[in-house]
């Protein structure tokens, strides 16, 4: 959508909190633990969707005509608001739900124990990435969306309901962020400030990959993940900023990211 959306971090946090609190409640009641995965997903979607719908309908849709930077600032403002909303709803105490993580057990790879949950996460990521690619390139709605992003005015002239596509895209993106939060929730303790960390990191991912490119985002995520793990292993002092270093280096060599598309010049 050509929108740099800072509220994405908030949706990640909302998803994580919703999943953590509701799954904990589910398990506390003694319901079957295997179903907690379903609760995890449903909780994130059910809680995050109203937020996303409200933000798009009530605020963002009035701002699409404005500068990209203005929209960025608006989402930053929303991010500040949501950050406190999250604190008001869930408080400042950390949430832990380790059961879904421990439940799947672990298996042996080359003599090391590896948690099965992480493997499931990788599978989920590939599933969602593939699904998104199919949605964008394989369906009528997805192709129309690409057209709408490229030129909203012409699309409108052709009879496309542009507003609805914007809404759908924003909600879908936000729900993906919430799901990511929900999937991560069992592996970490859910604390305030979760959103701040993840948003800058995901910006680094998409910038390294090239804005608006799916394979770019996937590759960017892999690069960021690998570089971070390597630095934790070999050079823990630089772990905090190594991502930004990589991002600066990639931009220095390829100014618009790895998988950037050609841009027409405006004369």
């Amino acid at each position: 959508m050509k929108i740099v959306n800072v509220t994405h971090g908030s949706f990640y946090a909302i998803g994580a909190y919703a999943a953590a609190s509701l799954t904990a409640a589910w398990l506390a009641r003694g319901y079957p633990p295997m179903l907690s995965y379903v609760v995890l997903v449903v909780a994130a979607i059910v809680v995050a969707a109203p937020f996303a719908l409200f933000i798009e309908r009530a605020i963002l849709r009035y701002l699409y005509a404005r500068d990209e930077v203005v929209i960025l600032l608006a989402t930053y403002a929303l991010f500040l608001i949501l950050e406190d909303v999250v604190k008001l709803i869930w408080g400042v105490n950390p949430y832990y739900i380790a059961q879904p993580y421990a439940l799947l057990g672990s298996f042996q790879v080359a003599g090391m124990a590896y948690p099965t949950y992480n493997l499931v996460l990788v599978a989920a990521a590939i599933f969602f990435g593939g699904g998104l690619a199919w949605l964008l390139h394989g369906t009528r709605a997805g192709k129309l969306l690409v057209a709408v992003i490229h030129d909203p005015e012409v699309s409108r002239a052709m009879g496309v309901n542009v507003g609805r596509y914007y809404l759908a895209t924003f909600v879908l993106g936000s729900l993906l962020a919430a799901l990511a939060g929900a999937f991560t929730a069992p592996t970490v303790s859910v604390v305030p400030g979760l959103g701040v960390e993840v948003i800058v990191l995901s910006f680094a991912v998409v910038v390294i990959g090239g804005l608006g490119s799916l394979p770019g985002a996937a590759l960017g995520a892999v690069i960021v993940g690998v570089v971070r793990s390597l630095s934790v292993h070999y050079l823990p002092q630089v772990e905090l900023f190594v991502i930004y270093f990589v991002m600066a280096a990639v931009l220095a060599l390829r100014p618009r990211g790895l998988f950037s598309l050609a841009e027409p010049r405006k004369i």
Partner: protein
Amino acid sequence: MKRDRTVALVLGSFVLLAIAGPWLPQWAMFIMTVAFARGLVALGLLLLLRTGLVSFGQALFYCLGAYSAGALGRFFGISDIFVEMLVGGAVAAAIALVLGFLLARYRGIFFGLLSLALSMILYGLLVKTEALGSTDGFNILPSTLFGARPGPDWVRYTVLLSAAGVASVAALLVHRYLQTPLGRLAPAIKDNEIRVEYMGASARHAVHVKYVIAAALAGIGGALAATTVGHIDPEMAYWTTSGEFIFIAILAGTGNVIAPFVGALIYGAIHTMAYDVSPNTWQMSLGAALLALIVFLPEGLWSIAGRLRAQWR
């Protein structure tokens, strides 16, 4: 042509502040001095915004200025306000000169995110540097002026007056700069960079110069904030600090060089009031204020002045 009252306005405000200063309560002086520091950074952002660039990494130079001032006190025992500001600005400008060779090629969102990355690198470095206090930062020596230490009742006033003086000079210089050919290129680059190149001007050079000026201003602001608050920590380089500065610059609008200082003052007031009214949800109040501004006042607070003037005629 419209008469330009900016110079008279700047000098008038300075004289007024100098006279009224001694009667101000201590807390008001503190808020105003910090506002001047933030205003200086926002003034640099104004230059960049007029060029169509949003730097999400001005905190880099703010922090550099602050740590330069801190290092002066810690390693050389110097605590003179003007030396601190001078060194802070110089260090920031020198770093910006080097980084500018890389950054001047970027526009739009990439400029913003690359500058953000650079400031986060500094944040990471400072957090890991034990010699400079790691995450705790360290305290700064009490401010002195030309070797003299003002009495306890007068410290705040002296610092405030120095801040106001430096801010006035900076505002006037930037105002003058915007009227030079190089300064006038700013809106041209924002509108259409390729045509600027056709006319024989180098957009990259113009951006580089503006970037260095903005960095120097941020460095001075950082040094000023350091000596006022008396403590510095790596949080000053975190990206949310840059967000604050952009908030101020947008809040104020880019219409006039005085706007950033007015914006910083109002930001300080909103911030303080939000803390006072709702200590636990001040972010929410701040976010709501910013959102309201973006929706209802696209040109910033300064545009109110223009509208009023239009009505009087």
